[in-house]
């Protein structure tokens, strides 16, 4: 298989969420370190810090986080839902808001509003856009790096019960990614704790235009 074929295959697999895990295995520290490189050496606007990241392997904490994720809705009215078991992975990586207010202004908004308000996404919309993009890029780097290392992954948007998550992690939680070993005996869509329930999966169409 050529490098391109391998990359195409890995990238395609990396889009799908893993819903169950083999928790008998441990991720080697060498791989953890590479995953940390992925979230810390990826591009960000003006190479600034927008987030901090928690790498969580403490099972008790992971299970407590998972309990807050009862947001996969299978019926709207009356509401019927289940949890997001991608958060039960061997490793749960959580992105949280983090700004350095000691920096000098580097954008027009920061110069006009001051460094604190200029970095506040509720006041300066472009600051929120920059933050979202920075986390999106970092999470993308993390996701593909994990797959290149042979792991499976699953994103969780971390908006449900967000206050509880923030209290647990002592930070403003913005996004989470479960990373770990797939349970090879199971369909990837089976709920980790409820093997009888399979999550649906959807396809997307991304329009790509060549302009030569």
């Amino acid at each position, binding site marked *: 298989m050529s490098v391109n074929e391998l990359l195409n295959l890995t990238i395609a697999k990396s889009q799908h969420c893993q819903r169950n895990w083999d928790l008998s295995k441990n991720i080697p520290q060498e791989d953890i370190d590479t995953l940390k490189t992925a979230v810390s050496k990826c591009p960000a606007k003006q190479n600034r810090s927008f987030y901090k990241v928690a790498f969580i392997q403490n099972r008790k904490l992971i299970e407590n986080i998972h309990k807050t994720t009862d947001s996969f809705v*299978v*019926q709207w009215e009356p509401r*019927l839902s*289940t949890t997001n078991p991608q958060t039960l992975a061997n490793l749960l990586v959580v992105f949280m808001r983090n700004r350095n207010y000691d920096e000098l202004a580097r954008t027009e908004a920061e110069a006009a509003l001051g460094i604190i308000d200029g970095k506040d996404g509720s006041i300066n919309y472009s600051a929120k856009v920059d933050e979202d993009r920075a986390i999106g890029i970092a999470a993308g780097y993390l996701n593909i790096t994990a797959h290149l290392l042979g792991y499976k992954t699953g994103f969780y948007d971390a908006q449900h019960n967000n206050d509880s998550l923030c209290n647990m992690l002592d930070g403003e939680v913005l996004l989470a990614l479960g990373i770990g070993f797939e349970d090879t005996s199971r*369909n990837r869509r089976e709920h980790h704790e*409820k093997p*009888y*329930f*399979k999550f*649906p*999966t*959807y*396809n997307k*169409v991304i329009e790509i235009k060549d302009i030569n």
Partner: protein
Amino acid sequence: MPKRQLYSFIFNEQQLDPYTAMSLVGSKVNSIKNVIAPNMLDGNITEEGDPSLSSDGLTLNVERIWSDTAYNELMSVTTIQEIIDHINALDFVSVQNYEFIDV
């Protein structure tokens, strides 16, 4: 006795994926939807393999196992023929096959 549910629907237009196609029909047939969702969560209805779409994206094939409880609940609110008639009355899809077989 548990039942194996087999159904095939034919769509007028190409569908993006099996679950979008299933949701499209399910959203129009409340009598089925309100039985399926809670029973899937409770494990009384389980998928057999993965639902599939034909290569042209027009034919959806689904196979599930229903417990006695789930099947009886469905039969308490509707009949197989009513389900088929309801789906055939939709303007974007028709039923090629819809059956329950004793497992």
